[in-house]
């Protein structure tokens, strides 16, 4: 049977669509990967600017950029957490690159190998595929079986580091409530607390943590109370893992921008703070 045999006129819709991202979808499927790519690119550009500032390539070398300690405040730029003070000065003096590079690989590794993050990167940055039922530009594929994407299997190791980082972010938030010898509250305290909160939610909802706490056993009722309760909490939080991924990405960038750029680089003296 063919269209000629049936004597039907030719149709304006082809049987196959050709070209980049070919699809029969008529909805705006490209909006989501585009927005995700824009947010990730913004974060990438911001991080590069931060590193260049620290290196002295751009901006004045006089400022520290990592710690803001004017007006009695103790604010640490969260992208550089825990900050150069956490390392021996001999090591730092021998290190020719920005100190932030010594720490930033851990949170970037955690986000880069994150099970939610993979969906975002594969779709929005690698177009593998860019959307569901949308043709891939490159058909040959090895998934996460070979280099480089086999590295994704190391997510749990980055999780261990991310747990330490979340604790450090809470420490920086706690520290931000102290102004010299007094206790107080500033916009920096607020934004660092929000950052620590959402980073904690993001880490606590991780799929690898879910596996470690109860996910890897078949009989959850056979485990102890703490594991059972922990598993049920993580199962709940895990449903919102993607949301926490984005919120914590934005809060870390916002907190860093406030401390490093708004206060540190622009040297703004008129900051909101209330000290007892």
């Amino acid at each position, binding site marked *: 049977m063919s269209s000629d045999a049936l004597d039907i006129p030719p149709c304006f*819709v082809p049987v196959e669509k050709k070209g980049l991202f070919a699809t029969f979808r008529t909805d705006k499927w490209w909006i989501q990967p585009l927005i995700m790519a824009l947010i990730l690119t913004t974060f990438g550009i911001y991080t590069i600017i931060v590193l260049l500032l620290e290196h002295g390539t751009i901006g004045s070398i006089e400022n520290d950029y990592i710690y803001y300690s004017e007006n009695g405040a103790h604010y640490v730029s969260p992208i550089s957490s825990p900050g150069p003070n956490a390392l021996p000065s001999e090591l730092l003096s021998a290190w020719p690159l920005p100190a932030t590079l010594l720490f930033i690989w851990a949170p970037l590794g955690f986000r880069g190998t994150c099970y939610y993050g993979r*969906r975002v990167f594969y779709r929005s940055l690698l177009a593998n595929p860019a959307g569901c039922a949308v*043709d*891939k530009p490159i058909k040959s594929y090895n998934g*996460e*079986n070979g280099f480089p994407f086999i590295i994704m299997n190391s997510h749990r190791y980055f999780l261990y580091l991310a747990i330490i980082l979340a604790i450090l972010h809470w420490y920086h938030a706690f520290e931000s409530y102290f102004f010299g010898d007094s206790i107080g509250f500033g916009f920096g305290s607020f934004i660092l607390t929000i950052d620590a909160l959402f980073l904690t939610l993001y880490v606590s909802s991780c*799929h690898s943590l*879910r596996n470690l706490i109860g996910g890897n056993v078949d009989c959850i009722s056979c485990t102890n109370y703490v594991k059972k309760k922990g598993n049920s909490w993580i199962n709940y939080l895990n449903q919102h893992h993607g949301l926490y991924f984005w919120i914590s990405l934005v809060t870390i960038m916002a907190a860093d921008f406030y401390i490093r750029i708004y206060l540190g680089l622009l040297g703004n003296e008129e900051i909101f703070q209330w000290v007892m």
Partner: protein
Amino acid sequence: MKRKVIIQRGEKSDFFMHEFEMEGGPGMVILDAVHQIQAKDAPDLAVRWNCKAGKCGSCSAEVNGEPKLMCMCRMSDYDESEPIVIKPMKAFPVIKDLVTDVSWNYEVNKKILPYQHPDTEDPRMLQEDVDRVQEFRKCIECFLCQDVCHVIRDSDMKSEYAGPRFLMRNAMLEMHPLDQGNRLETLKEDNGIGLCNITRCCTEVCPENITITDNAIIPMKERVVDEYYDPLKWIWKKLTG
């Protein structure tokens, strides 16, 4: 109201798009439109269907490029001024018109180690242990997840990859509180779980709203990492036996 519907027709390698004009009505679903066309204009139009209630998984097709059950999508969800394009599932060979040959899926299923019952007398399990795998039993085998998965659809790796439906079946058996089988090696080697890159399209198209990626595939990936990619776990196992 008159609606334009364009359906891919043909068999073997001879395919063409056939445009129809039909009378749309309130509450009509895509499958109703196909049936009306079959009754009035094209009695030889091939379409597989059964329950018309989204439970048998027979009427899977691609409506305006999106893998869907035809009985579950309303005509009113689509712009009246634009034609609706209906195509068979792209990942499987077409038998005729909208009917595809999905037998590959059943061959994959046969290779999965079935449930292994324990030797103990009167084995029991609690509801809280069964809850987790109960979700996977909602699967109606419409194979829309298999159709949308780019590993099967675009890269055509059917010989190396089982697809989301069968990774989920593995998960259902592996997480079963009484099952005694071990499927991790076959998950990694034969079912190609490493080929899944978590783009979550299977979850997005599932008409039963099963959280395939987060609740089945990722837990299985983690168990494969436990077994094959975690050196600390390996050392711990050696030390503790």
